[in-house]
């Protein structure tokens, strides 16, 4: 019991850090309705500022007080800039657009610090006392208690502010109903700005005060947003008290799991404690809490969220498909090897983005787990080939099926959780799958990695090493390009057909209004389950293609942060359109666009990260419907409206372009 109590106390430090960031997440959400993925990055920026001022990296080196004051000013300026540039213009956009915008802020913050100060970790000077105390027979640093105390005080102050002050009441009113609040003379923009500034100060304070329990670099603090989002979600993104308690609770649970991992009953793998258990437990807690607290349908009084961009009905399928096949095949034959590879990466990126078009674009479910499902398929392909000698095409089929199975399990949570809450839950699922699944040497990547042999069919090598050469020799073979092209066009046709069919209409009905869809006798649950299955299946196909492309499977390729970036670029491309998926593929990792930027302009690595973040935010502001959506609008403005279609005895008017 004494040991348990000790580890409860030892969890206070990291718990306080998570709690502080969770408070900032709640503040931003209450003010502007944005789930700010960049909260940890904002803490990081303040940490860098304080370090630079204190150590003389900027200026001549300052004492603590002026450095803190200037850091506060800097934090406020950063908060104001983020509000004005990234948040305010998207005030009326969909929740996903806002989330993606904050991801753009995260990319810019990380890239700018990497470019300015390099990858080197910085020695951030501690502010809190560095003394230790002896508790329950062990040494515990005093600053853990102090940090926890400070965060609790901040939470209490915020609770009081929002409960009893006029500003707090105004913010609550605006977050409930912005229009009514404006009619009552409240400025939603002003309220949003003040809340974002408060959120910046809270996050910045954590970034400066937590120096002794974290390291100052471009990754450590930004990553803390994942548990902070979980804590904020448990607080329904509104309660400061619950957010703080949940954050500290997550820290304590992690600490207790550290202790449990040394016990003889704890499962092991290769002689060391089984990895990923913490992430799995955290996910199970979140999903259980959300499932119990969620509803099968949104409540009558619940805020109706802004919808996603329009979903035009594809008019022609055969002609674009045949054209794509001919042009694609020709490109594979004439391109030099590096652009051949970039085209393959692009096409696989298209398939991956199509998975998001179905689940997010058509059904409105923000799922971050799709890339992890692709990983499940990839690892299945590898294990079946290496351990059971099962190769193409059975292995990728099995991989896709397993992805569908896991997709269905995810869908169960989506039956009672929706919107941005689902995004956070599926983010937790993605982290758990990556840590517990992919990092495990038994069912994930082993010591020697996860090799994937070439796909063969009827004695033909269909992989990157096939003997077929294009005009220029060298890997990858155009043969693998043809296979990927065929699969990609097939997937595009599948998704476009889905949108044109009856089920597509039902998906859009669910996306528009679940209550209305249910009232119209649409089985909302069934639609979601089927949509998740189809989407997971497409992700599974993409995962198998990744595996054959790399000749191996690596856990890093399917990480949660990569998944967030995928969603961001899929949204920027146009998440409701097949052509949007094509745009997303073009800008996917080592796709045609990044490769050309690298080869011809020398923009790569951290510069591309910065460039990507800036472009992302500008695309969202200028074209909230994505590049493909804007392209579609421009194209169709010039065309005469087509005649109504007659299909199945029913008139399907052009007006079915959903908004």
């Amino acid at each position, binding site marked *: 019991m004494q040991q348990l109590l000790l580890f409860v106390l*030892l969890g206070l430090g990291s718990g306080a850090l998570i709690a502080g960031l969770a408070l900032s997440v709640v503040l931003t959400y209450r003010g502007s309705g944005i789930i700010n993925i960049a909260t940890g990055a904002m803490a990081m920026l303040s940490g860098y500022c304080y370090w630079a001022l204190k150590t003389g990296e900027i200026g001549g080196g300052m004492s603590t007080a002026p450095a803190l004051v200037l850091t506060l000013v800097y934090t406020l300026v950063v908060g104001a800039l983020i509000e004005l540039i990234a948040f305010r213009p998207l005030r009326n956009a969909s929740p996903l657009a806002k989330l993606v915008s904050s991801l753009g802020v995260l990319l810019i913050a990380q890239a700018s610090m990497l470019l300015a100060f390099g990858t080197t970790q910085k020695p951030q000077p501690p502010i809190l006392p560095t003394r230790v105390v002896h508790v329950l027979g062990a040494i515990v640093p005093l600053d853990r208690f102090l940090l926890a105390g400070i965060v609790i005080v901040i939470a209490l102050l915020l609770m009081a502010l929002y409960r009893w002050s006029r500003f707090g009441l105004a913010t609550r009113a605006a977050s409930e109903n912005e229009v009514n609040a404006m009619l009552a003379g409240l400025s939603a923009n002003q309220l949003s700005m003040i809340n974002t500034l408060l959120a910046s100060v809270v996050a910045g304070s954590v970034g400066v005060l937590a120096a002794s329990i*974290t390291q100052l*670099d471009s990754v450590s603090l930004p990553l803390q947003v994942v548990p902070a989002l979980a804590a904020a979600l448990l607080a329904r993104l509104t309660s400061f008290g619950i957010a703080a308690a949940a954050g500290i609770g997550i820290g304590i649970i992690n*600490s207790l799991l550290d202790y449990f991992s040394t016990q003889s009953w704890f499962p092991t793998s290769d002689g060391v404690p089984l990895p990923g258990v913490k992430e799995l437990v955290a996910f199970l807690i979140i999903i259980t809490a959300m499932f119990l607290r969620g509803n099968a349908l949104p409540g009558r009084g619940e805020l109706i969220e802004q919808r996603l961009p329009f979903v035009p009905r594809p008019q022609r399928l055969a002609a674009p498909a045949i054209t794509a096949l001919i042009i694609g095949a020709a490109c594979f034959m004439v391109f030099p090897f590096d652009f051949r590879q970039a085209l393959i990466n692009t096409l696989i990126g298209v398939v991956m983005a199509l998975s998001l078009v179905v689940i997010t674009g058509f059904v409105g479910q923000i799922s971050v787990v799709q890339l992890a499902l692709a990983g499940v398929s990839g690892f299945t392909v590898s294990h079946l080939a290496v351990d059971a000698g099962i190769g193409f095409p059975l292995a990728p089929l099995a991989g896709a099926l397993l992805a569908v199975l896991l997709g269905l399990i995810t869908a169960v949570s989506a039956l009672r959780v929706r919107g941005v809450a689902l995004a956070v839950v599926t983010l937790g699922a993605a982290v758990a799958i990556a840590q517990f699944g992919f*990092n495990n040497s038994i069912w994930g990547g082993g010591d020697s990695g996860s090799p994937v042999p070439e796909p063969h069919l009827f004695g033909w090598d269909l992989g990157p090493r096939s003997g077929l050469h294009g005009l220029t*020799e060298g890997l990858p073979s155009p043969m693998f390009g043809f296979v990927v092209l065929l699969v990609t066009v097939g997937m595009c046709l599948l998704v476009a057909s889905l949108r044109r069919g009856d089920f597509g209409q039902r998906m859009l009905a669910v996306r528009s209004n679940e209550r209305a869809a249910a009232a119209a006798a649409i089985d909302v649950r069934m639609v979601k389950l089927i949509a998740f299955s189809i989407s997971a299946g497409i992700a599974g196909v993409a995962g198998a293609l990744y595996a054959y492309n790399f000749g191996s499977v690596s856990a890093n390729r399917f990480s949660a942060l990569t998944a967030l970036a995928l969603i961001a670029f899929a949204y920027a491309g146009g998440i409701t359109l097949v052509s949007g998926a094509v745009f997303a593929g073009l800008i996917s990792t080592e796709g045609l666009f990044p490769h050309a930027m690298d080869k011809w302009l020398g923009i790569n690595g951290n510069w591309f990260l910065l460039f990507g973040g800036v472009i992302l*935010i500008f695309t969202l502001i*200028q074209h909230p419907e994505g590049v493909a959506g804007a392209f579609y609008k421009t194209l169709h403005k010039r065309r005469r409206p087509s005649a109504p279609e007659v299909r199945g005895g029913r008139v399907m008017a052009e007006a079915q372009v959903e908004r």
Partner: protein
Amino acid sequence: MVSQSLRGWLGVAAAIVVLGAAGCGSSDESSTTAGSTSAPAADTGASTTADTTAADTTASTDADSGGAGADSVTDYAAYVGGSGKADPSKSPVTIGWVNQQGGQEVIGAAATDGADFAVKAINDLYGGIDGHPVVLKKCFIKSAEEEGTTCAQQLGNDSAVKVVDMGGVATGIQSFYSSIDKPVITGVAVTPVDGTQKWGTVLFGDAAHVLGPMGTYARDVLKAKSAAMVYPNTSGVREGAAAITQAMKDAGVPAKGVGYSQGQTDLVGPLTAANAQSAEMVVPYSDASGCVNQAKALQQLGITDSKKIVSAPLCLNPDVAAGLGGDYPLWTYSIASSLYGDPTDKSMAVYMKLADQYKIKAAPDPWVIVSFGVVMSTAKLLNEVGPDATSDDILKAARAFKGPVVLGAPELACGKYPDAPAICNDRAQFFTYAGKGKFDKAAGWLSQPTG
């Protein structure tokens, strides 16, 4: 509502601010750019101490034979197999070079400097390859798995490249090996993937094999009765932790290990759970990205005995030193290569003189030492098989190489481990870091304990 045009201007202003901040900062990237062999002292290994230069870095020992002992390579020209300047009129011999740099995570920031340093020396002093000058064709993996494939294809599709040398690479390592059919010679393998590869040769060893001697060190040198270990649960590191756990078991030293999540910041809990506060040996094991947090937590708990804290050389990284205020953690390190400044290592004396001659400020960095050794050994192998040898010939020669390696182990045994045929070394030396660039030898070359 901000108007469209105002939004545009605000955006442009923000971009300028961001780009300005990025451009005006003191980027550390410059020290890792290709071809740069004049990295500032502040970025380079032991010289990162506030008032310490490369020349100040020293190691002391009671042992008679440092480095590879009597087998130490002292005549680099004879080792490579030539002398004098390479003939610039002859066609160059191209060696591929891959390193992870330019992205969010850099493992061997200075590894490319070491490779460049070796190429300069080979072309100026050791006669190139049969008189042909050596050139490096470089490819860098920044942050994506796809870049492993890209690098493999760039080097694999170039018929001029017969062999590829590798620095510190973790990201994209699997896809790289999957797409290349040429010999790849690595110094220190960061992941366990390299050791299993058909085309791989790992001259200095990988974590899973060179960390085993920690068990011997615990039993024979420290006489420890208990050990504690903390490590991040990430791919590559966990396999090394498993190797240390097994080595402790084989050595009969009870050990508790706690793996923490990659994003976990406060490590006081994991250290306490592993009983680090009372253990007689503490192993903080991580790649460079986790060393600062481990060092801070140990410091906070008052665990400061540099002899009983034993770690891998991945923490001897300029990033780590910078993160701790300018110096490496004061621990003991298990190192599979020579150490800069070791006065008993005759091979190191030659290297230091050469580094002085070429003004290589990054010379003390362990990655520079290892990369230098790898390229020198590759040149030796190419001279043995001839510049027109096939990739198969080079692989055979590499696998048959028995050592000694310049600045490495006195003898090699490639293929000793059937499950990791590319691993050529499983021994390590131990040095205790006393601060300000000073290392004391704690133990000479030790092998794994037998179970």
